[in-house]
């Protein structure tokens, strides 16, 4: 029987997340103390050795990301991405509401590694109560004197999915429209207000205290060797246990859905699962024995992404769900680059046409061509990922599309 493995959420609901003293009682801030006693280079090496990779979706080695920051720059920033806009995702909210101090400690550890004394948390506008909690948590940590000269400010976004992209997020903290920047330069070299900046996800930062106190080898030994540690997954849709779990990264999707998740609701059969949020691929039953780690998911043309797990039962209309998703991307495209602005508009238009029973094979061909163009030419991850739900469902659930096409040659159709 698959089991949860709680590291970040071991003390969930047992401590007050805003209270630094509570956190210290269960071993908190020991990792930061250790980090501050290390040479920055050795600290970065330790994080690299742990194999910790970004938990926001891109899966980049965290220590490696930090090593790009020039040590001699006079001012540097640590930025936490708490924008979590991927539909079906709420893990970062859970980490804050259960263990906010671990996030603050992780940011301060990053500060010690890159030589920064200012952190920003960019929290999505949908979570004003999390912003309040984080402000209290920072005050509490300051009162305990554990942050030293590292300061953290929480800023609130205002409802824009694209701000989860790190350069758009930086633009938003600077008070601009949240439009992604051209890269390079990458934020590690030229980020917030033009200075070197590390942007990491909440979950990535929150792993750091445990890596420092328990050791890089310990962390590297959990779960999948190439994407070690735990991952917090959020189960939604037609699943019995619609809640969050912290699991080792070598757990399979089948175990997540059928053992922890309790299987499909109301005794119905499984049809598909979309992993990683609304930009993720749809996965059929045949592929459920895949471990959830970044590389295993990537190898089968899907993505772990944010760790959202949306389960659809046998009665769900895939084309209808994907049509809704295409509306999401049209709404959230920032409009800066043409492939995404026009592409998401056309995706939605064609998906609606098919969903309404007016589509043809030609429309499906056009969708696939459009998808290629967007994946190659869009400026940021939003436009590149937007067609993935369409692509993956045409691949695995083509019959659902065919069923809705207009009869043109005497076969197919309704």
């Amino acid at each position, binding site marked *: 029987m698959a089991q949860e493995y709680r590291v970040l959420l071991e003390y969930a609901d047992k401590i007050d997340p805003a209270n630094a003293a509570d956190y210290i009682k269960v071993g908190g801030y020991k990792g930061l103390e250790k980090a501050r006693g290390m040479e920055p280079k050795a600290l970065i090496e330790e994080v690299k050795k742990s194999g910790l990779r970004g938990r926001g979706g891109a899966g980049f080695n965290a220590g490696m990301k930090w090593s790009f920051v020039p040590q001699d720059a006079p001012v540097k920033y640590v930025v936490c991405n708490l924008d979590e806009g991927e539909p079906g995702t709420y893990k970062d909210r859970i980490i804050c509401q259960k263990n906010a101090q671990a996030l603050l400690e992780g940011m301060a550890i990053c500060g010690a590694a890159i030589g920064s004394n200012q952190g920003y948390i960019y929290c999505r*506008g949908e979570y004003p109560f999390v912003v309040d909690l984080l402000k209290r948590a920072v005050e509490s940590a300051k009162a305990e004197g554990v942050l030293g000269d590292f300061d953290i400010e929480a800023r609130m*976004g205002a409802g824009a999915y694209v701000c989860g992209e790190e350069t758009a997020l930086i633009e938003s903290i600077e*008070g601009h429209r949240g439009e992604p920047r051209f890269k390079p330069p990458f934020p590690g070299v030229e980020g917030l207000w033009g200075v070197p900046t590390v942007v990491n996800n909440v979950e990535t930062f929150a792993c750091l205290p445990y890596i420092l106190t328990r050791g890089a080898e310990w962390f590297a030994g959990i779960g999948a060797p190439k994407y070690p540690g735990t991952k917090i997954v959020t189960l939604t*849709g037609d699943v019995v246990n619609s809640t969050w779990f912290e699991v080792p990264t070598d757990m399979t999707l089948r175990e997540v859905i059928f053992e922890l998740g309790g299987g499909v609701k109301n005794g119905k059969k499984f049809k598909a699962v979309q992993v990683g949020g609304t930009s993720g691929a749809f996965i059929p039953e045949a592929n459920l024995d895949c471990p959830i780690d970044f590389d295993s998911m990537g190898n089968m043309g899907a993505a772990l992404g944010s760790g959202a797990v949306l389960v659809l039962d046998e009665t769900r209309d895939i084309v209808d769900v994907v049509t809704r998703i295409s509306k999401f991307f049209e709404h959230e495209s920032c409009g800066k680059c043409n492939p995404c602005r026009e592409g998401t508009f056309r995706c939605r238009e064609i998906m609606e046409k098919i969903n309404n029973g007016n589509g043809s094979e030609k429309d499906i061909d056009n969708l696939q061509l459009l998808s290629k163009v967007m994946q190659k030419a869009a400026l940021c991850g939003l436009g590149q990922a937007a067609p993935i739900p369409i692509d993956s469902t045409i691949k695995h659930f083509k019959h659902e599309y065919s069923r809705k096409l207009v009869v043109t040659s005497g076969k197919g159709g309704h």
Partner: protein
Amino acid sequence: MPVHTFCEGGEKMANYVDIIELYRGKKGGIIEAFHALQNEFNYIPEEALGLVAKTFGVSEAEAYGVATFYSYLSVKPRGKYIVRMCESAPCHIAGADQVVKAIESYLGINVGETTADGKFTFELCECIGQCQATPVVTINSEPIFNVSPEQIPEILSACK
């Protein structure tokens, strides 16, 4: 039926000049200033937007560009209660469409409109990160979970 606390509190009046002044000199503080204005007025009044631009040293066009980029900011007057229905995929499959119809029918307005008495504005939104209990409606950012169309009259009539 969840307990609603969002309907409490009386009318507040404040001078937008004082609100904006609090953010003067704050790097990147323009969005914070907009949030503060909205907390008070439920939208960003035109005169206030002009003063924000001046205070932060940007053109009015730029300030307007920022205010209209984000879906939670509004430059048009809105009701005292902003009702938002999440229509992202997890809420969609949980029956968001039926809840939208129930809200429209109870309030007698369509999505994007404000009731004639200025009490309610109804908007659609994307995922608000409460997908453990879909479908989700928010009233002035307070989430209400597992909403069914039948509950809508009770939920909305609690807003005084």
